[in-house]
């Protein structure tokens, strides 16, 4: 099976969906001539032309709004934000137009649209450009939010997002674009939105996570296995709607849970996961659920401080041991 990068997996997803449906078009800063700030749209301008691969000015609110309008009249826009930090400027279109149009038009206008781009911290990009926005976006009724952590999931979820008749947020990762994984080229990959995946099976505890943190969780699972501790690593894949059944099934089996996320603690995605766990698994819990997340501060620029602020393997291992009463 071919091993490709996360970036190429996204590129394949865009190409396949643009070939399949000529209403699909890509729009954003530097997506066309420059082939994408992270080269996700490499070759697309050449293949599909400038009507379907559109460079925009640095006007997030403007082109997000153009996308909503295009979706209202039957096109299926994919709007790329160079990063989700820049999408803050467009949040009114995302939240107030895209997410609510179906509801406020009494069902007359659905918005078959994708907003995508890198989310979360990379390395030393400082406070304004190192933020994980999933809890903000997942808070909004009317939006679906997916966060693929592997090339396979990136391809499958982006394709499903483009085919979805409602607005879907796709959270990628700057640090993920170069990661590699197996992606079959002889079958169509469509991952259902709203389905989690058990990326690794264990018995002693469950790590619930999503997006980039999947890589950390799997690394932690390897280290723990050497100490005889086997954990379930549950990849939510979709943050909204969340796969509560998968969470409950795993936690009922292991009786212990650690919830790992890239973003901040307060009102984070993990808080919602913990709520589902206490609701669905109260009588199955042998220990309070422990969360691992970014420190409650703007991301520091200094390398050592940035490292200290981010969730990491040591913090996650300590959390697993805590729920197992080992430390």
């Amino acid at each position: 099976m071919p091993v490709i990068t996360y970036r190429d997996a996204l590129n394949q997803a865009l190409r396949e969906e643009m070939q399949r449906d000529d209403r699909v078009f890509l729009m954003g800063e530097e997506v066309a001539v420059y082939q994408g700030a992270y080269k996700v749209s490499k070759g697309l301008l050449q293949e599909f032309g400038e009507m379907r691969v559109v460079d925009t000015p640095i006007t997030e609110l403007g082109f997000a709004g153009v996308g909503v309008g295009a979706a209202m009249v039957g096109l299926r826009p994919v709007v790329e934000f160079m990063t989700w930090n820049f999408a803050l400027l467009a949040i009114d279109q995302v939240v107030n137009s895209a997410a609510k149009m179906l509801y406020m038009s009494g069902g007359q206008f659905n918005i078959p649209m994708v907003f995508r781009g890198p989310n979360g911290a990379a390395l030393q990009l400082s406070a304004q450009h190192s933020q994980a926005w999933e809890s903000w976006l997942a808070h909004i009724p009317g939006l679906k939010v997916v966060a693929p952590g592997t090339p396979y999931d990136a391809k499958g979820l982006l394709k499903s997002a483009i085919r979805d008749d409602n607005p879907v947020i796709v959270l990628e990762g700057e640090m993920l674009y170069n990661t590699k994984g197996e992606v079959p080229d002889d079958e169509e990959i469509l991952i259902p939105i709203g389905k989690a995946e058990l990326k690794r099976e264990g018995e002693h505890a469950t790590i619930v996570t999503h997006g980039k943190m999947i890589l950390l969780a799997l690394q932690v699972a390897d280290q723990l296995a050497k100490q005889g501790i086997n954990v379930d690593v549950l990849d939510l894949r979709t943050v909204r709607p969340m796969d509560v059944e998968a969470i409950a099934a795993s936690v009922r089996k292991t009786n212990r849970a650690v919830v790992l996320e890239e973003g901040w603690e307060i009102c984070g995605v993990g808080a919602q996961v913990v709520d589902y766990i206490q609701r669905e698994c109260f009588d199955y819990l042998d220990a309070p659920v422990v969360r691992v997340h970014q420190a409650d501060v703007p991301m520091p620029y200094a390398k050592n401080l940035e490292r200290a602020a981010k969730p990491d393997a040591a913090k996650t291992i300590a959390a697993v041991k805590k729920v197992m009463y080992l430390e």
Partner: protein
Amino acid sequence: MATKVVMEALSPTMEEGRLVKWLKNEGDQVKNGETLAEVETDKAIMELVARGDGVLRKRLLPENEAAPVGQLIAVIAAPDENIDALVAGAGGAPAAAQSAAPAPSEVVAKTNESAGASSVPRTTAQAQGEASMPPQEQAPAAGPAPTPAPSRQPSDVSRQSADGNGGRTRSSPLARRMASDRGLDLQAVQGSGPGGRIIKRDVEAAVAAGTGVPQAAGAAIPVPGSQFAGPDSRDVPLTQIRKTIARRLAESIGPIPTFYLTAEFDMERVAEMRTAMAAMGDEFKVSFNDIVLKAVATALAQHPEVNAHWLGDKIRYFNRVHLGMAVAIEEGLITPVIFDADRKRMSEISREAKELARRARDRKLKPEEYTGSTFSVSNLGMFGIDQFTAIINPPEVGILAIGALEEKPVVVDGAVSSRKRMRVTMSCDHRVVDGATGAKFLQTLRRLIENPLMLVY
């Protein structure tokens, strides 16, 4: 909106109820507050009322069958409303239904949400002397029947309360569930988690070691001879009240370290007083028992150290004397309460005792009339019993067993004479009452009974 009719907790200790009689037929129009059925609780026959208007669409519990508190037993809805989902969801096995009993917190929460609920339910512990009434839940008719989350009974929680650990045994929800599944008493399990929290591995270890044996209360102990059923014997199913007696008394004799103090009182002066009073006219007639009750109440007022409740992590001493009085009834016994007995005149006690006994035999006592006693008296004198020991009615810490009055030869001032004598035996919970404490109470009681004029002081 359909209204689910559930078996309600119609007495503070009720865990299941037997449906004696349906008073409404399927198809009958019913109004909020109207009586639907008669239900036998562990204490009495009570009325179950509707908590919503509509047509009694479906009765799910046949007469003479029992259902645990919280189980769906009928549905009230509009004539054309689809109630299939509700009814389908009700067909649970008793085990499933058991878990549907609403936890107190759920009940309270629901009541708060539904403004105008008929009564404010309380937990068993809070509802001392009052029935707790979970309101029937309102449910959308066509919606799926809610799956009941497993809930802990209040008694489970209180059972875990004796510990130096801020008054409760800490345990994870999983450990509690495992212990309950295995009939294990968590109190006997050593916790290894933070702050002594009992966790999964502790329960597993206890199971492996065979500690934390099942609670005495509901444990099914094989009864020898039970295989000899046949024409020479008669099997009678347990009534609710018999079940409750069995459970309560087993709870008592098991964990309560009881000791007994017996004394013999001279009753000559009581007899004289009684005869003198009766001579004044019928309205002044009182029984020996009335005089004993008055004396006990007066003595208790002077000895709050025996007028108390054992609450696991604390002892509650009462300033008021609420005297429980065991009454034999056809189905067993019940202990109605003379409240503030120490402050009542003998005539009031006499009248009240008579009235309570009558209503107990008719099974007309309200829950608040047989709960809340601080000490109890049991009298088998009228059956010719010279002396016996009574079983403490927890959480009380003492009970006085009264024997028969009999004439016997007694040495008084060096000469044998015939005297009326009566033996009393006090059962004491040694966790609260020590030997000397109980003896001092009996000393006071002797002074009062042998000098009954002090009762009018």
